[in-house]
Protein backbone atom coordinates (compact mmCIF):
# COMPACT_ATOMS: atom_id res chain seq x y z
CA UNK A 1 0.00 0.00 0.00
CA UNK A 2 1.51 3.31 -1.07
CA UNK A 3 2.11 6.11 1.36
CA UNK A 4 -0.62 8.72 1.66
CA UNK A 5 -0.04 12.45 1.23
CA UNK A 6 -0.52 13.00 4.94
CA UNK A 7 1.95 10.29 5.90
CA UNK A 8 4.51 11.88 3.57
CA UNK A 9 3.84 15.32 5.03
CA UNK A 10 4.18 13.91 8.54
CA UNK A 11 7.72 12.76 7.75
CA UNK A 12 8.65 16.12 6.22
CA UNK A 13 8.24 15.40 2.50
CA UNK A 14 7.62 18.89 1.10
CA UNK A 15 6.58 17.62 -2.34
CA UNK A 16 3.51 16.05 -0.74
CA UNK A 17 2.19 19.48 0.23
CA UNK A 18 1.57 20.41 -3.41
CA UNK A 19 0.02 17.02 -4.13
CA UNK A 20 -2.26 17.33 -1.11
CA UNK A 21 -3.36 20.80 -2.19
CA UNK A 22 -4.06 19.60 -5.73
CA UNK A 23 -6.08 16.63 -4.51
CA UNK A 24 -8.11 18.30 -1.78
CA UNK A 25 -7.69 22.06 -2.24
CA UNK A 26 -10.65 22.47 -4.56
CA UNK A 27 -12.94 20.57 -2.21
CA UNK A 28 -11.96 22.68 0.78
CA UNK A 29 -12.20 25.89 -1.24
CA UNK A 30 -15.69 25.08 -2.50
CA UNK A 31 -16.75 24.10 1.00
CA UNK A 32 -15.47 27.44 2.31
CA UNK A 33 -17.34 29.29 -0.46
CA UNK A 34 -20.61 27.68 0.54
CA UNK A 35 -20.17 27.78 4.31
CA UNK A 36 -18.96 31.37 4.47
CA UNK A 37 -21.19 32.96 1.84
CA UNK A 38 -22.68 36.10 3.31
CA UNK A 39 -20.38 36.17 6.34
CA UNK A 40 -17.85 38.59 4.86
CA UNK A 41 -14.93 36.27 5.57
CA UNK A 42 -11.70 36.03 3.57
CA UNK A 43 -11.94 32.69 1.75
CA UNK A 44 -8.23 32.20 1.25
CA UNK A 45 -7.56 32.88 4.90
CA UNK A 46 -10.23 30.35 5.86
CA UNK A 47 -8.81 27.70 3.53
CA UNK A 48 -5.30 28.33 4.81
CA UNK A 49 -6.57 27.95 8.37
CA UNK A 50 -7.97 24.52 7.43
CA UNK A 51 -4.83 23.32 5.68
CA UNK A 52 -2.45 24.51 8.38
CA UNK A 53 -4.36 22.34 10.83
CA UNK A 54 -4.37 19.46 8.33
CA UNK A 55 -0.60 19.64 7.86
CA UNK A 56 0.10 20.02 11.57
CA UNK A 57 -2.20 17.08 12.34
CA UNK A 58 -0.80 14.88 9.58
CA UNK A 59 1.10 12.73 12.08
CA UNK A 60 -2.16 11.71 13.71
CA UNK A 61 -3.69 10.37 10.50
CA UNK A 62 -3.88 6.56 10.34
CA UNK A 63 -4.88 5.26 6.87
CA UNK A 64 -5.92 1.90 8.26
CA UNK A 65 -8.71 3.63 10.12
CA UNK A 66 -10.18 6.03 7.55
CA UNK A 67 -9.57 7.99 4.37
CA UNK A 68 -7.51 11.15 3.98
CA UNK A 69 -10.54 12.80 2.42
CA UNK A 70 -12.65 12.14 5.52
CA UNK A 71 -9.86 13.31 7.81
CA UNK A 72 -9.55 16.58 5.90
CA UNK A 73 -13.31 17.07 5.53
CA UNK A 74 -13.75 16.72 9.30
CA UNK A 75 -11.13 19.39 9.97
CA UNK A 76 -12.58 21.66 7.29
CA UNK A 77 -16.14 21.37 8.58
CA UNK A 78 -15.12 22.12 12.16
CA UNK A 79 -12.86 25.03 11.26
CA UNK A 80 -15.38 26.64 8.93
CA UNK A 81 -18.22 26.30 11.42
CA UNK A 82 -16.01 27.90 14.09
CA UNK A 83 -15.29 30.75 11.68
CA UNK A 84 -19.00 31.26 11.03
CA UNK A 85 -19.64 31.50 14.75
CA UNK A 86 -16.85 34.00 15.30
CA UNK A 87 -18.11 36.10 12.40
CA UNK A 88 -21.59 36.17 13.86
CA UNK A 89 -20.24 37.13 17.28
CA UNK A 90 -18.28 40.05 15.82
CA UNK A 91 -21.17 41.52 13.90
CA UNK A 92 -24.82 40.94 13.14
CA UNK A 93 -24.78 38.91 9.94
CA UNK A 94 -27.87 39.07 7.75
CA UNK A 95 -28.06 35.85 5.80
CA UNK A 96 -30.35 35.01 2.97
CA UNK A 97 -31.84 31.55 3.04
CA UNK A 98 -32.16 31.31 -0.69
CA UNK A 99 -30.55 27.92 -1.19
CA UNK A 100 -33.46 25.59 -1.52
CA UNK A 101 -33.07 21.86 -1.14
CA UNK A 102 -34.47 19.80 -3.96
CA UNK A 103 -35.30 16.13 -4.06
CA UNK A 104 -32.18 15.55 -6.15
CA UNK A 105 -29.45 17.57 -4.50
CA UNK A 106 -25.97 18.05 -5.79
CA UNK A 107 -24.76 14.54 -5.17
CA UNK A 108 -22.24 14.13 -7.95
CA UNK A 109 -20.93 10.66 -7.29
CA UNK A 110 -20.39 9.62 -10.87
CA UNK A 111 -18.03 7.09 -12.39
CA UNK A 112 -14.96 9.19 -11.66
CA UNK A 113 -15.67 9.47 -7.96
CA UNK A 114 -13.97 7.16 -5.51
CA UNK A 115 -15.80 4.43 -3.65
CA UNK A 116 -16.21 6.27 -0.38
CA UNK A 117 -18.16 9.07 -2.04
CA UNK A 118 -20.22 6.65 -4.09
CA UNK A 119 -21.22 4.68 -1.03
CA UNK A 120 -22.06 7.80 0.91
CA UNK A 121 -24.12 9.15 -1.98
CA UNK A 122 -26.04 5.89 -2.26
CA UNK A 123 -26.65 5.81 1.50
CA UNK A 124 -27.80 9.42 1.40
CA UNK A 125 -30.28 8.68 -1.37
CA UNK A 126 -31.85 5.95 0.76
CA UNK A 127 -32.67 8.30 3.64
CA UNK A 128 -36.10 9.81 4.16
CA UNK A 129 -36.66 13.12 2.40
CA UNK A 130 -36.79 15.12 5.63
CA UNK A 131 -33.50 13.58 6.80
CA UNK A 132 -31.79 14.30 3.48
CA UNK A 133 -33.04 17.85 3.56
CA UNK A 134 -31.56 18.75 6.96
CA UNK A 135 -28.29 16.90 6.34
CA UNK A 136 -27.90 18.68 3.00
CA UNK A 137 -28.34 22.05 4.66
CA UNK A 138 -25.95 21.15 7.51
CA UNK A 139 -23.18 19.39 5.61
CA UNK A 140 -23.39 20.79 2.10
CA UNK A 141 -24.38 24.37 2.83
CA UNK A 142 -22.89 24.63 6.31
CA UNK A 143 -26.07 26.00 7.86
CA UNK A 144 -26.36 26.02 11.65
CA UNK A 145 -29.25 24.03 13.07
CA UNK A 146 -31.01 27.28 13.97
CA UNK A 147 -30.66 28.55 10.42
CA UNK A 148 -32.00 25.28 9.00
CA UNK A 149 -35.04 25.58 11.26
CA UNK A 150 -35.69 29.04 9.88
CA UNK A 151 -35.06 28.02 6.27
CA UNK A 152 -37.50 25.13 6.31
CA UNK A 153 -39.84 26.60 8.89
CA UNK A 154 -39.85 23.84 11.48
CA UNK A 155 -38.96 23.91 15.21
CA UNK A 156 -35.27 23.62 16.13
CA UNK A 157 -35.95 20.40 18.03
CA UNK A 158 -37.38 18.84 14.89
CA UNK A 159 -34.27 19.76 12.92
CA UNK A 160 -32.04 18.19 15.55
CA UNK A 161 -34.13 15.03 15.69
CA UNK A 162 -34.04 14.63 11.91
CA UNK A 163 -30.29 15.25 11.77
CA UNK A 164 -29.55 12.78 14.55
CA UNK A 165 -31.80 10.13 13.01
CA UNK A 166 -30.46 10.66 9.51
CA UNK A 167 -26.83 10.63 10.57
CA UNK A 168 -27.36 7.46 12.61
CA UNK A 169 -28.97 5.77 9.63
CA UNK A 170 -26.21 6.98 7.33
CA UNK A 171 -23.53 5.64 9.63
CA UNK A 172 -25.20 2.25 9.82
CA UNK A 173 -25.60 2.09 6.04
CA UNK A 174 -21.97 3.00 5.47
CA UNK A 175 -20.91 0.19 7.75
CA UNK A 176 -17.51 -0.85 9.00
CA UNK A 177 -15.43 0.99 6.41
CA UNK A 178 -16.58 4.25 7.89
CA UNK A 179 -16.10 3.09 11.43
CA UNK A 180 -12.53 4.27 11.47
CA UNK A 181 -12.12 4.70 15.19
CA UNK A 182 -9.50 7.15 16.27
CA UNK A 183 -7.82 7.59 12.93
CA UNK A 184 -10.21 9.71 10.99
CA UNK A 185 -10.92 12.53 13.39
CA UNK A 186 -8.23 15.05 14.07
Amino acid at each position, binding site marked *: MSETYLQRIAR*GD*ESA*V*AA*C*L*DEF*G*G*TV*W*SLAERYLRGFGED*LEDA*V*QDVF*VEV*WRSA*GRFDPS*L*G*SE*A*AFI*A*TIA*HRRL*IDRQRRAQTRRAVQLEDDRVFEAKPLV*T*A*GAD*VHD*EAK*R*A*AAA*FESLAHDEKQVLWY*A*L*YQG*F*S*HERIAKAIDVPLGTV*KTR*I*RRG*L*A*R*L*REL*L*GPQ*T*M*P*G*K*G*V*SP
Partner: protein
Amino acid sequence: MSDMTRPNPGPINAEAQRLLDLLADRATGGLSAPDQAEMEALLRRVPPLTDAAGRPITPEAVDAAAASLMIALSSKPAPLPAEARARLLARGMDVVRETASRDRKSVV
Protein backbone atom coordinates in the same frame (compact mmCIF):
# COMPACT_ATOMS: atom_id res chain seq x y z
CA MET B 1 -35.51 6.28 19.37
CA SER B 2 -33.15 6.25 16.41
CA ASP B 3 -31.12 3.30 15.16
CA MET B 4 -28.03 4.90 16.61
CA THR B 5 -29.57 4.74 20.03
CA ARG B 6 -29.86 0.98 20.17
CA PRO B 7 -26.73 -0.23 21.88
CA ASN B 8 -26.09 -3.90 21.99
CA PRO B 9 -27.16 -5.25 24.36
CA GLY B 10 -29.92 -3.60 26.34
CA PRO B 11 -31.74 -0.29 26.30
CA ILE B 12 -30.00 3.03 26.39
CA ASN B 13 -30.13 5.33 29.39
CA ALA B 14 -30.75 9.05 29.40
CA GLU B 15 -27.09 9.99 29.68
CA ALA B 16 -26.09 7.77 26.80
CA GLN B 17 -28.90 9.19 24.70
CA ARG B 18 -27.76 12.70 25.48
CA LEU B 19 -24.20 11.78 24.51
CA LEU B 20 -25.38 10.40 21.17
CA ASP B 21 -27.35 13.58 20.52
CA LEU B 22 -24.34 15.75 21.28
CA LEU B 23 -22.09 13.66 19.04
CA ALA B 24 -24.49 14.11 16.13
CA ASP B 25 -24.81 17.84 16.82
CA ARG B 26 -21.03 18.18 16.97
CA ALA B 27 -20.52 16.41 13.65
CA THR B 28 -23.12 18.47 11.81
CA GLY B 29 -23.18 21.91 13.36
CA GLY B 30 -20.59 22.19 16.09
CA LEU B 31 -21.20 22.60 19.81
CA SER B 32 -21.37 25.59 22.10
CA ALA B 33 -18.76 25.67 24.87
CA PRO B 34 -21.22 24.36 27.51
CA ASP B 35 -22.35 21.55 25.21
CA GLN B 36 -18.73 20.67 24.44
CA ALA B 37 -17.98 20.47 28.17
CA GLU B 38 -21.07 18.32 28.73
CA MET B 39 -20.06 15.98 25.90
CA GLU B 40 -16.56 15.55 27.32
CA ALA B 41 -17.96 14.81 30.77
CA LEU B 42 -20.37 12.25 29.33
CA LEU B 43 -17.60 10.60 27.31
CA ARG B 44 -15.75 10.03 30.56
CA ARG B 45 -18.82 8.78 32.39
CA VAL B 46 -20.90 6.78 29.92
CA PRO B 47 -19.77 3.20 29.17
CA PRO B 48 -18.74 2.49 25.56
CA LEU B 49 -21.72 2.39 23.20
CA THR B 50 -22.38 0.11 20.29
CA ASP B 51 -24.98 0.16 17.55
CA ALA B 52 -27.42 -2.59 16.66
CA ALA B 53 -24.71 -4.40 14.71
CA GLY B 54 -22.34 -4.29 17.66
CA ARG B 55 -20.04 -1.65 16.18
CA PRO B 56 -18.67 0.95 18.59
CA ILE B 57 -20.23 4.39 18.42
CA THR B 58 -17.35 6.78 18.98
CA PRO B 59 -17.04 10.51 18.27
CA GLU B 60 -14.74 9.57 15.41
CA ALA B 61 -17.30 7.18 13.91
CA VAL B 62 -20.00 9.84 13.95
CA ASP B 63 -17.60 12.42 12.47
CA ALA B 64 -16.63 9.93 9.78
CA ALA B 65 -20.21 9.40 8.65
CA ALA B 66 -20.71 13.14 8.35
CA ALA B 67 -17.37 13.56 6.54
CA SER B 68 -18.22 10.83 4.04
CA LEU B 69 -21.42 12.60 3.13
CA MET B 70 -19.63 15.92 2.81
CA ILE B 71 -17.23 14.29 0.35
CA ALA B 72 -20.08 12.78 -1.65
CA LEU B 73 -21.87 16.10 -1.87
CA SER B 74 -18.74 17.98 -2.90
CA SER B 75 -17.10 15.55 -5.24
CA LYS B 76 -16.58 17.69 -8.33
CA PRO B 77 -15.11 20.96 -7.11
CA ALA B 78 -13.31 23.53 -9.24
CA PRO B 79 -9.53 23.61 -8.73
CA LEU B 80 -7.98 26.12 -6.34
CA PRO B 81 -7.44 29.59 -7.81
CA ALA B 82 -3.80 29.68 -8.99
CA GLU B 83 -2.67 32.63 -6.88
CA ALA B 84 -4.26 31.21 -3.76
CA ARG B 85 -2.65 27.84 -4.47
CA ALA B 86 0.79 29.44 -4.70
CA ARG B 87 0.39 31.22 -1.37
CA LEU B 88 -1.06 28.13 0.32
CA LEU B 89 1.79 26.04 -1.01
CA ALA B 90 4.38 28.47 0.41
CA ARG B 91 2.62 28.39 3.77
CA GLY B 92 2.46 24.61 3.65
CA MET B 93 6.20 24.35 3.07
CA ASP B 94 6.77 26.57 6.10
CA VAL B 95 4.52 24.42 8.26
CA VAL B 96 6.22 21.19 7.18
CA ARG B 97 9.67 22.66 7.92
CA GLU B 98 8.54 24.03 11.28
CA THR B 99 7.02 20.70 12.23
CA ALA B 100 10.10 18.74 11.12
CA SER B 101 12.38 21.11 13.04
CA ARG B 102 10.24 20.82 16.18
CA ASP B 103 10.21 17.02 15.89
CA ARG B 104 14.02 16.91 15.54
CA LYS B 105 14.40 19.06 18.67
CA SER B 106 12.02 16.85 20.64
CA VAL B 107 14.07 13.76 19.65
CA VAL B 108 17.31 15.43 20.78
